[in-house]
């Protein structure tokens, strides 16, 4: 199979030809990869060209058949898209999914609302075609109505909204199709509808893969915040979970950046209501650091209800922009310094600045994001407590073993030395020593088990050496002090070692 050419010098028509070729060969995954916003095909292209290319790819995927792997690209356009060509292409593509699903209905209705003032004619006849005569081509509303006809009774939940579309502002030549959609939706479903699914709820967000991955910037990232302060990545994100959204002030889609920032403001309020504002921070990072200067970011955020302080910042990169883009795998591309396309993206970072949860492409709910951030906070608290308790117990067991008397006489000597009258009557118990030994071995085993997640061996080797030295001290070697020190130090190193998770791809 010939490789896909990603040379930036390709013309739009050449890329479209590649797309057609991939569709003919059913190379579905390569087509899907072309829908990632950071694909080289979109570099240095106008937003209008990106629309043409993405729409053509969606249509190609529709010919091959939309699958679960590509469904979110389609739903994204219906959820947030305002471009007539892309919305129409997405509506057509949805009809190639194996079966209608009632969970699609809210997306279709939302698209009808979004595109109402932009129902411009589009042509799918050839790449780059535009409709030049009234009454020709298709339209986003036309395609959405066809999708409702396809969904039939699966769209029953939105029948009232579909009926409400009729009116003087509705395109007259689509009234017939609207009637057909209403009829199809209102009709009783066939008894055995192959592949028809009734989703448990009207929300497909649970179906989509929320990727979890860690963040290891390979280059120093320095931010400037909304008040002009310079901060490193660690300064901003270490020590607490953070909810992060990406935006830029020149975004012209009100359903993306401006809404994301407004929602972040509501997230801040939710955190305050739950008494978590000091423990979970928020950050908005601009895609457009050269233009979004501090005063501009501040004005943009404050007008949309953001509170700005040391725990809630708007940020632009002044160093390490490329590194930040690589490690978040940001869904964005540029023509010169201006964004030409981006997806909605929000993240929950843990207290070490690693990505714990990501929300991409579809509108995210403020309460969901806050709940995820609270999960991250709670799990960090629990790990801290259990980790500390385990470390302390294991270390004390080793210390106990090191100092435990070797015989009953020694036991008596210890007690008299301590001068504790009452304890003279505590008999020597030979079972205590093996118990302490077992405790020390349990500690040793636990630090070695921990290396499976941290991949850091230093602490484990130190504890091993410590236990060995304590063991030797039981045979007369003067190594107990060193053994105790090694055990304590090794247990501490193990407890503080960070977990290292493999990096996985965001859809």
């Amino acid at each position, binding site marked *: 199979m010939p490789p896909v050419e990603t040379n930036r010098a390709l013309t739009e028509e050449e890329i479209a030809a590649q797309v057609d070729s991939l569709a003919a060969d059913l190379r579905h995954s390569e087509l899907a990869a072309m829908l990632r916003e950071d694909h080289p095909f979109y570099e240095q292209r106008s937003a*209008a060209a990106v629309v043409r290319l993405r729409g053509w790819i969606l249509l190609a995927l529709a010919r091959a058949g939309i699958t679960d792997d590509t469904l979110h690209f389609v739903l994204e356009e219906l959820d947030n898209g305002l471009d007539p060509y892309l919305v129409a292409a997405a509506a057509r593509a949805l009809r190639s999914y194996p079966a209608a699903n009632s969970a699609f209905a809210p997306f279709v209705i939302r698209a009808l609302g979004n595109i109402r003032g932009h129902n411009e004619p589009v042509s799918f006849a050839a790449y780059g075609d535009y409709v030049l005569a009234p009454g020709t081509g298709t*339209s986003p509303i036309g395609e959405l109505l066809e999708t409702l006809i396809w969904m039939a009774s699966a769209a029953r939940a939105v029948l009232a909204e579909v009926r409400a579309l009729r009116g003087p502002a509705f395109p007259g030549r689509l009234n017939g199709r609207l009637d057909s959609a209403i009829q199809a939706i209102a009709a009783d479903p066939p008894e055995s509808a192959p592949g028809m699914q009734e989703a448990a709820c009207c929300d497909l967000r649970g179906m989509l893969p929320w990727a979890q991955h860690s963040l290891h910037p390979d280059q120093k990232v320095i931010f400037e915040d909304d008040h002009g302060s310079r901060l490193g990545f660690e300064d901003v994100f270490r020590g607490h979970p953070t909810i992060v959204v990406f935006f830029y002030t020149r975004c012209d889609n009100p359903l993306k950046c401006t809404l994301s920032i407004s929602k972040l403001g509501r997230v801040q309020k939710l955190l305050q209501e739950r008494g978590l504002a000091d423990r979970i921070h928020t950050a908005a990072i601009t895609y457009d650091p050269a233009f979004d200067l501090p005063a501009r970011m501040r004005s943009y955020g404050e007008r949309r209800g953001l509170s700005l302080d040391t725990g809630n910042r708007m940020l632009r990169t002044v160093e390490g922009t490329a590194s930040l883009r690589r490690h978040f795998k940001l869904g964005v591309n540029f023509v010169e310094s201006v964004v030409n396309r981006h997806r909605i993206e929000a993240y929950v970072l843990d207290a070490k600045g690693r990505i714990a949860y990501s929300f991409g492409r579809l509108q995210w709910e403020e309460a969901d994001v806050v709940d995820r951030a609270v999960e991250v906070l709670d799990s960090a608290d629990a790990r801290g407590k259990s980790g500390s308790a385990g470390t302390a117990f294991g270390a004390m067991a080793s210390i106990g073993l090191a100092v435990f008397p070797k015989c009953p006489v020694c036991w008596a000597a210890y007690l008299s030395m301590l001068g504790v009258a009452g304890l003279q009557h505590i008999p020597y118990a030979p079972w205590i020593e093996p118990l302490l030994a077992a405790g020390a071995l349990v500690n040793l085993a636990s630090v070695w088990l921990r290396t499976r997640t941290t991949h850091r061996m230093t602490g484990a080797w130190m504890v091993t050496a410590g236990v060995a030295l304590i063991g030797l001290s039981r045979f007369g070697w003067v190594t107990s002090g060193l053994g105790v020190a090694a055990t304590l130090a090794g247990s501490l190193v193990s407890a503080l070692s960070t977990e290292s998770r493999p990096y996985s791809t965001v859809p």
Partner: protein
Amino acid sequence: MAKKRTSKTKSAVKSAVKKSAAVAKSARSKSRASARIMAALNAAQPVTPGKPGDLEHMIDVLRDKEKPIEVRFAALQSLGAAAFSEPDFPSIQGDYTAALREVATDADSEMRRRALGILARGKDGFAQKKLMDGLKNPDQALLPPEKALQLLGNDIHSDAYPIARAMVKNAPNPTARREALRLLATDAASAPTFEAILQDKKEAPEIRQISAAALHSLKPEKLQEYARDILLDPSEHADMHQTSLTALTQFGDAELGDDKKLMNRVNRMSASGSATVKSSARQFLGKYKAKE
């Protein structure tokens, strides 16, 4: 001597009469044109609110190349007004857009300009492609380059930046260069270009003013620095003094009031120079002296 004066006077009178006749002719011509347009507007039957048929009729009139151009302009004007005022307009939005695209390649240059203007302000991809094709291949141009650049500037997400940059270096005419600079004012990478132009006294004041406006957006701290330098330079053009005073009065840092050299200079400007510069200087002093 008297004869010479008489012949000079006669010549002056003849010239004045000729000029008056030309003005009168022009006025009559405009008046006839206005009358034609008024007749056309009446013939085009203004849109009746709540009657979509009227809107469709206007679209047909717009597209009909057999109709007089004034009538088609009138239809376009009616449709443009209806787009804002008619609640039923969305029902024919698609047809309107298609019609605009059709007449964007009309034989009449004014029709092309108006149609492409409406489409470009709506960030229409068809219009942008046509305008870009025209800039890259002048024989395909539907509009002059300065107009094409102006319309492409309606969308910061267009890919006109490389062409605009080339135009700044080598423009077919000064207006095209001006529009190219306006377009680049949204490109952060072009800040150095604007810095160089602002500091170049050989550039026309209008061009330097465009650069100042661009720097205010892209690098406000640099604008403040250069504005100060311009004010301290008595050989600078008065228009640039004016622009710099306005920029610093509106957007300057509070610390400017501590800049004695600058304050003294502006003080002197408030007492001498043109009326507008004096007025701007007083406003500047009013802002910064009040903070003392």
